[in-house]
């Protein structure tokens, strides 16, 4: 009922908004030299140490490699199984293995499970690296994170047994939801959330 109508409205809105947002980008987001000169310039090394946000292209990934086999051992030795369950379910922490949705299932039918629902492999690597294990965040080596990521992808049939991952191959993984999601429309000041919501 709503979808067809709203779809059209949304597409129109996007097209209309694309022109002004590009204009805003050019006018107000121009590069310029410092006006106040307050603060200091970080060193390249400093930036590298701080920069743990891994984008979809994986440019920030550190050199390293890991394997499904190593990941399956680390999953137990690092305590993941204690909260997430031995096979990625049944624990107190969020589920890590897709639900059985039968053959030809849409990836959205597998439940809110990061290593299958995420459109990008980098999101999984990034989150394990920055926020796991609980209480010992930031202690995993890059190789360990590659291994654990590989193992979680293996559990969800994203990669085959025996797969090895590194900074080149990880961003190349085609996640089943790679294009199967909706980005929020371009945001502009003073813009309604959705034209016509809810009536």
């Amino acid at each position, binding site marked *: *009922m*709503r*979808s067809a109508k*709203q*779809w059209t409205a*949304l597409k129109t809105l996007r097209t209309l908004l694309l022109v002004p947002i590009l204009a*805003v*980008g*050019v006018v*107000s*987001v*121009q*590069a*310029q*030299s*410092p*006006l*106040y000169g*307050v*603060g*200091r*310039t*970080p060193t390249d090394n*400093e*930036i590298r140490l*701080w*920069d*743990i*946000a891994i*984008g*979809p292209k994986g440019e920030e990934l550190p050199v390293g490699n890991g394997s499904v086999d190593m990941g399956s051992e680390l999953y137990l030795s690092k305590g993941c199984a204690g909260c997430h369950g031995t096979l990625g379910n049944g624990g107190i922490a969020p589920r890590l293995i897709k639900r059985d949705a039968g053959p030809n299932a849409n990836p959205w039918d597998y439940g809110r499970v*990061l290593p299958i*629902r*995420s*459109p990008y492999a*980098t*999101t999984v690597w*990034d*989150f394990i690296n*920055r*926020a796991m294990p609980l*209480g010992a*965040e930031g202690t995993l080596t890059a190789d360990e994170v590659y291994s654990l990521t590989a193992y979680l992808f293996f559990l969800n049939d994203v990669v085959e047994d025996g797969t090895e991952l590194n900074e080149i191959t990880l961003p190349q993984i085609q996640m089943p*939801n790679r294009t199967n*999601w*909706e*980005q*929020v429309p*371009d*945001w*502009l*000041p*003073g*813009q*309604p*959330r*959705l034209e016509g*919501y*809810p*009536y």
Partner: protein
Amino acid sequence: MSQKKTDRREFLKRSAAVAGAVGLGAVKPALGQDHEHTPVAPEPGAFIRGSDEMTAYGSRSRFVDSVRIPHGGRESPDAFGLDFHIATPLQDSVGEITPSSLHYMGTTRGSFVPDIDPDEHRLMIHGMVDNPIVFSMEDLKRMPSVTRKHFIECAGNRSRSSHTTIQETHGMTSNAEWTGVLLSTVLKEAGVHADADWVVAEGVEEVKGASSIPMAKAMDDCLLCYGMNGEPVRPQQGFPLRLLAPGFEGIFNVKWLRRIKVVDEYYMTYNDFGHLTRDPVNAALGYQIGPKSVITYPSGGQQLPGAGFYEIGGLAWSGGGRVSRVEISTDGGRSWKDADIRGTAEPMAHTRFSFEWDWDGAECELQSRCIDEIGQIQPSRQQALDFWSTDGERATFVKGQDNSIQPWRVASDGGVHNAIS
């Protein structure tokens, strides 16, 4: 005595007479319930003795017991000292500002509140910029500053039929006066590349919570805040530095802010993953908080002493800009009248409204409705559910943020109840 007061007194007398005449004599007007008081000085022991603590930071009266509560039945802090969501006591609020001690708190996964020495704290601006910069807190305080009132609301702030008080239904929104540096000021200082469309804002807590924010928002009104209600930001609110993304869902207001990375695409951080949807309508409703309001008095769990005059009071806000109008219904949404806006409505800020009401003592339903400056109208629950319903399937849940109208039922005994079914 002013003419207005005289008129009110006459009016109340007449109301009482009318109430008696139609058989509601058992419900006395509120004015008649107090007893005669003789002016006396407090007993010597009833003075608050001066103390170093009272001199240094002060405290509220021991007769004031308004407190926050853990939200949603989840213990906070838990056995390990992790904080989860904590709701503010809106039922006791007056004016527009939420005291810092009572400001709601949200966390992404349960969080130990970082204990940060501000002298050691740094903010890095880097990525697609000409001049990456590291700021100390001292550096930031040298930069041109602004002070603005803004609300923050958790996207999960929704009323359920099992809730009895406004603290449960709406307690995850709060409003403070924030002081800091416009993010646009430091982004211009760094020199953002023309093809940069997003920033990733990141905190220092153990999960290092990070969110992607559109460049248009970052350049519009986002704030790097070190001040809150006239003093440093509280630890639970991100001391020594938090991001404010006015009008955006709570999670975008990154606390314990350590880094702004300028990028050319949506980074799909774990926080962003929480917004992942395949429904374009749901996606469009995902960032900006809709127009919303709630009556704080009378509200669920409160007890009116009897028929007579009351000032209905409440709060209205919108992520779309200023509140331009608030309407009140005392008959369950059948008819609406304009409420008075108290003070000045500011963009993306709680705005106090009031409405003079003479209650006849009969059961009724109170509602408020917010209209913002860009014409968005707060929907009734019915309208929101109609929107989310499809052919053959009636929605029972408002997806995403629920900004629908809150009905309070005033029973004939003066008890006030959540009227959401």
